[in-house]
């Protein structure tokens, strides 16, 4: 127990980043994620890393682009409005095949909205809120421990596939405190960054990091290569959690904080003798389609629950077997209001076959 630490989800993200060897953090304050820059402002310099509070989210993502182009691990974090401002930069990183980690601690929108939890940035994160057609890796933690573990994973996947990676959580996960085990960085072999700009003194050929593609067929080739890489991601990196799905006649599906709340509701349903299970996607991109295919072979009724009027529901419907019904409970949260297990249990009762 000694090495366990009682920390906020946001702090867990920052701790994991340092353990993952992040060299540069560039960010701009915004609630409910400011604990991340605040933690790193304190701790990163001590590890020889760079912390800069950028003049804006746009400057921050472009500093990440520059640092990442040299081959070091770099990250930024923000929430709704700030993430929107980063879309051009993220699109450039994707177009330049640059790794880099972006943390989005979701708050309410649209616009200034409010600082309480929301899951309405699902589409922005998984479809590419930026221009030009690209995807980024999106990981959705469901506990403070996962805030730590998935931040670590985000760096590795991003380096491995040369695709920006996003940790997508919300103010519940960012602000809640739990005891975690700060696991050491896993030994994982990554390709060396041949492509990085270093100055030729490092004996490399000229390296150019760019997204402009004017050569004959260059752009088509890029898009189909990325398409294949996304497929590879789906095959090798899809992650999800199942809870009591084996004999389930109804499968609740939700991600992040909502999944955490739903799990308790599922337990209530089980106590009430209902055969209900939970399917929690951990990777939102790649979306764990296969899990839905397999489960929908056995169970023909799903209940999708989101802190929005419905976004992930598209991916669920596109994933399950055609003869599967997908019910939906949307709960765009308001100031100080979140769905309770009781509330979700009520919904389970309503749709339970």
């Amino acid at each position: 127990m000694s090495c366990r630490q009682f920390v906020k989800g946001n702090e867990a993200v920052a701790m994991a980043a340092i353990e993952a060897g992040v060299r540069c953090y560039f960010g701009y304050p915004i609630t409910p994620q400011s604990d991340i820059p605040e933690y790193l402002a304190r701790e990163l310099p001590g590890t020889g890393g760079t912390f800069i509070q950028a003049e804006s989210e746009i400057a921050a993502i472009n500093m990440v682009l520059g640092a990442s182009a040299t081959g070091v691990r770099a990250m930024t974090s923000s929430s709704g409005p700030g993430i929107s401002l980063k879309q051009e930069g993220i699109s450039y990183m994707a177009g330049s095949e640059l790794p880099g980690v972006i943390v989005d601690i979701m708050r309410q929108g649209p616009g200034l909205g409010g600082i309480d939890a929301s899951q309405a940035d699902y589409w922005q994160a998984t479809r590419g809120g930026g221009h030009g057609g690209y995807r980024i890796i999106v990981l959705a933690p469901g506990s403070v421990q996962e805030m730590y573990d998935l931040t670590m994973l985000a760096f590795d996947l991003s380096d491995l596939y040369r695709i920006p990676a996003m940790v997508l959580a919300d103010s519940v996960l960012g602000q809640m405190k739990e005891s975690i085990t700060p696991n050491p960085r896993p030994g994982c072999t990554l390709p060396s960054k041949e492509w990085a700009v270093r100055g030729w003194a490092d004996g490399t050929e000229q390296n150019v990091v760019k997204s402009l593609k004017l050569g004959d067929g260059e752009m088509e080739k890029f898009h189909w290569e990325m398409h294949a890489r996304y497929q590879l991601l789906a095959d090798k990196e899809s992650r999800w959690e199942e809870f009591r799905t084996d004999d389930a006649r109804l499968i609740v599906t939700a991600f992040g904080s909502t999944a955490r709340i739903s799990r308790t509701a599922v337990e209530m349903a089980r106590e009430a003798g209902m055969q209900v299970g939970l399917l929690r996607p951990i990777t939102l991109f790649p979306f764990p389609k296969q899990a839905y295919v397999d489960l929908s072979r056995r169970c023909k009724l799903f209940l999708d629950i989101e802190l929005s009027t419905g976004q992930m529901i598209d991916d669920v419907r596109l994933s399950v077997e055609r003869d599967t019904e997908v019910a939906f409970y949307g709960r765009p949260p308001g100031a100080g209001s979140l769905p309770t297990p009781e509330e979700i249990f009520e919904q389970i009762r309503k749709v339970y076959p």
Partner: protein
Amino acid sequence: MRHDVFIAGYGGQGVLLAGNLLSYAAIFEGRNVSFFPSYGVEKRGGAAMCTVIIADGETGSPVVGHPSVAIILNQLSFDKYAGKVKPGGFCIVNSSLVEAGESALPGVTLIRIPMNQIAVELGDARMVNMVACGAYVAASGALALPSLCEALKKSLPERNHKFIPANIKAIEAGAERVREHLAG
């Protein structure tokens, strides 16, 4: 065994510190904890509230609809949260600032403690939250008093460790009041 509690008051009453204190005490006892704060616009602002869940197994949902116990430090919070306590539960109110009629909460044990008064008597009005924690421990039996005293080290910044003895007094005073209350 699973315990959940709401702690609510206005900014400055030390609601979050109280939540942290209970959390660290539970951790000291080797239990699992999740602590979930919530506050107003952007970062600052009037009302402060947090939920603490203590469990031997998984803590489950950080969001609780109906806690078994609520610690209420001011009137606004009482009006907003007291009604949510689940039947059979406790509601510990700071009677120095809260008007609460018995009738208000059918099926819920109302424990009135003049926390400001006690704190002031002990010489520091800011110890209201400590009195409250003592009261909670005595009322719920969720934690042992000594664990609370242990937890002070972790939940207070170094520079405030000098206040630990005073805080312990406040905690005990809170606990004592509850025992009296339950006794008679």
